[in-house]
């Protein structure tokens, strides 16, 4: 019995770990600058978290399958540009425009999934790197590298509007993350994603259509990137082909800080949210302290390395305990 108790304590520690880091950093900035804890600023943090959080949710799912999607930043930009082109072609209906944006993301996600499951390319690191270049190039080519503006309010409102200062985009994040939580933990497809990530062959030989599961994961990743694009258009009021060039690495960082692993099979949506918030808070706090964006970059890099270090150390200790127990 004591064994199970000890284990659940360890589980708890691994779940609380990123949360603790968030609280510590929160407290540091609260002490360091009085502006940090102000209502407007906190709302700002939420606003700044939204885009990364949405992309990270999709990224998490492909990371659980032991894959990766390096094309999300480019997909985000391309989706908004296609929406912009539709606008220029005379589409005025907001719902239709958003649908076009999301459909673009789904299509490119399906393309990524097909490269993996139909053409059997070795690892999505390579294939999505290719897609990333294609999507970015396509966005620049189709728009002539120009910015597109003039979107109707219906399109802009998701990224722009607030309720008592609380950004609607972050409300969307919360609702979607609750959906993701139930999807990943309470549906058979969700559990299958973890199983395919842990051992695709064992899953296939247990009658799980691993290929289909993987395809769905990449489609979801593309869809979330396009949704983040809608929020981005709302915040900047424009579609810009060069937007979002750090989104992919930011999303990977959020997932890894939140406990996901490149080896697949693990990671939770709430960990990912904490990871995304942590990144936003560090950026925001350093901004308030007047630190240059270059310095922010350095700090964020250090945080990512630290998070992974903590994670592998924990895993190594667990593996050691397991080895000892198995002797």
């Amino acid at each position, binding site marked *: 019995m004591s064994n*199970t108790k000890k284990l659940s304590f360890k589980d708890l520690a691994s779940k609380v770990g990123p949360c603790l880091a968030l609280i510590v950093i929160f407290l540091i900035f609260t002490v360091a600058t009085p502006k940090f804890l102000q209502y407007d600023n906190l709302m700002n943090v939420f606003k700044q978290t939204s885009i990364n959080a949405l992309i990270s949710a999709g990224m998490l799912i492909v990371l659980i399958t032991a894959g990766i999607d390096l094309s999300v930043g480019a997909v985000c930009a391309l989706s908004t540009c296609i929406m912009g082109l539709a606008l220029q072609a005379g589409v005025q209906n907001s719902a239709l425009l958003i649908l076009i944006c999301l459909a673009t993301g789904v299509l490119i996600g399906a393309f990524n999934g097909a490269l993996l499951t139909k053409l059997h390319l070795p690892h999505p690191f390579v294939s999505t790197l290719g897609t990333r270049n294609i999507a970015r190039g396509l966005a620049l080519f189709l728009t002539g590298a120009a910015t597109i503006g003039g979107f109707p309010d219906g399109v802009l409102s998701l990224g722009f509007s607030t309720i008592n200062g609380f950004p609607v985009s972050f409300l969307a994040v919360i609702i979607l993350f609750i959906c993701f939580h139930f999807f990943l933990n*309470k*549906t*058979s497809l969700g559990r299958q994603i973890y199983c395919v990530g*842990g*051992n695709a062959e064992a899953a296939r030989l247990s*009658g*799980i259509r691993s290929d289909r599961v993987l395809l769905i994961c990449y489609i979801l990743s593309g869809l979330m990137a396009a949704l983040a694009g809608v929020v981005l258009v709302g915040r900047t009021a424009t579609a810009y082909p060069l937007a979002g060039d750090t989104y992919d690495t930011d999303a990977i960082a959020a997932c890894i800080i939140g406990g996901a692993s490149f080896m697949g099979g693990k990671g939770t949506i709430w960990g990912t949210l904490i990871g995304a918030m942590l990144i936003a808070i560090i950026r925001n706090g350093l901004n308030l302290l007047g630190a240059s964006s270059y310095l922010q970059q350095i700090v964020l890099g250090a945080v990512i390395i630290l998070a992974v270090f903590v994670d592998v150390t924990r895993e190594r200790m667990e593996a050691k305990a397991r080895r000892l*127990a*198995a002797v």
Partner: protein
Amino acid sequence: MSEYIVELRDTTKRFPGVVALRGMHIGIRPGEIHGLIGENGAGKSTLIKVLTGVHRPDEGHILVNGQEVHFRNPNEAKDAGIACVYQELNIVKLLSITDNIFIGRTIEKKSRLLDYKKMHQMAHDVMLSLGQDVDPQKPCGNFGMGVQQMVEIAKAVLFDAKLIIMDEPTSSLGENEVGQLMDTVRELKARGIAILFVSHKLEELFELCDRVTVMRDGEWICTEDIADMDNDKLIQAMVGRSLSNLFPKVQGQRGAEALRVEHLKSAGVLRDISFAAYRGEILGFSGLVGAGRTETFRAIFGADPLDSGKIYLDGKEARIRAPLDAVRQKVAFLTEDRKGQGLVMSQPVKTNLILANMRGFRKGPWLDERQIREAVAGNIKSLSIKTPSADETVSKLSGGNQQKVVIGKWVNTDAEVFIFDEPTRGIDVGAKIEVYNVMNRLVKEGKCVIMISSELPEILGMSDRVIVMREGRVMADIGRDSVHFNAEDIMKAAWGGAL
């Protein structure tokens, strides 16, 4: 001088919460083949690691040639002449045989460049002396497991090992290769090298060893001349209780035909396979490694494509294009590779138990946690899976308990045809008997059980009927009451002889 080349005295090794070795002692004479046997968890691995300098004992003495030594790391053990061929070979498959043999101990010319001419020559000579005429410049991955293992042995021989420890050396080899390995081990003995031969397979110990040491729960039980032992005595010493019968065979009542295949063919693997399997019987599949047994059932299960042939389930032609089709038509396939193909090691016992039937545990769009909990608790009880809880990660269980999880996974699909591929490989005697009992129970419930096994005693002990395969063809179909139902005739068929 001491009687022993390597001796371990009163050695205790503790790990947090467990005592892995408890006053263990063992002495290995120069030039003898010394068997070491014990159930999983008996402490064999720890013993090996103490001898090879991986672990330092908490108490006790290690003596080499009568002199006490204290190994601080594996290199010091190597320098003292103790080498080990682990079950998982330390071979870099992309590197040549020469590179693998000389890894870390390369020979240089005066110019400080590597002297490949000399190393290739030495590698070739030592491999030849072990009965392997191979080109040492070719990558190890080009060769089979047998040759790769010889490369490990060559390393030990070339660097003057006095004692070579072999940990389950035959578990990954085919019959041919096992024969070769045994010849090599005898050859090493003739050269005066002592061998500590760790194995689960009693026949091998009887065939090869001079003496045998049995250990249980980290303790020394006995060391005997092999001539003074027999199967029953060894097993009794190993498990601490008498097992009147290793194979608790229950005679089944043969029922209707459950599975029939006709003229299965796939290029290069299956030449022409036809057979039928019935409810209420255990149908054994015997043959040499590479005879196409696993391939046959992978094809039937939809895991590999078929070029032609028909599959009938309960007399009706079945269309199986992917494993999912087979699962839906109540066929279960327990793969031989538990870790690689049977389980998702990173996931809990619970998830693995419902892996093959997640759809069956749904209520609306959601997984029905209560139903899952009940089913999983039932599995753990009825299969006596030893796990602290249903949420334990499956990788933390012992091999035997992992195998029971795989069985549970398929029991939960309400399958009618169970294909067991090497179901008892690498699990200890106690767990083996439990697996056999599950088969008995399935047969009693009127299911059809197919057992692919490379171990003849298991085939003879458990099967109601045996099909012998060779090179993608069915060679013989022998019922339990046939005069041919014996090891000699089955082997004869496996080698292509007529009965």
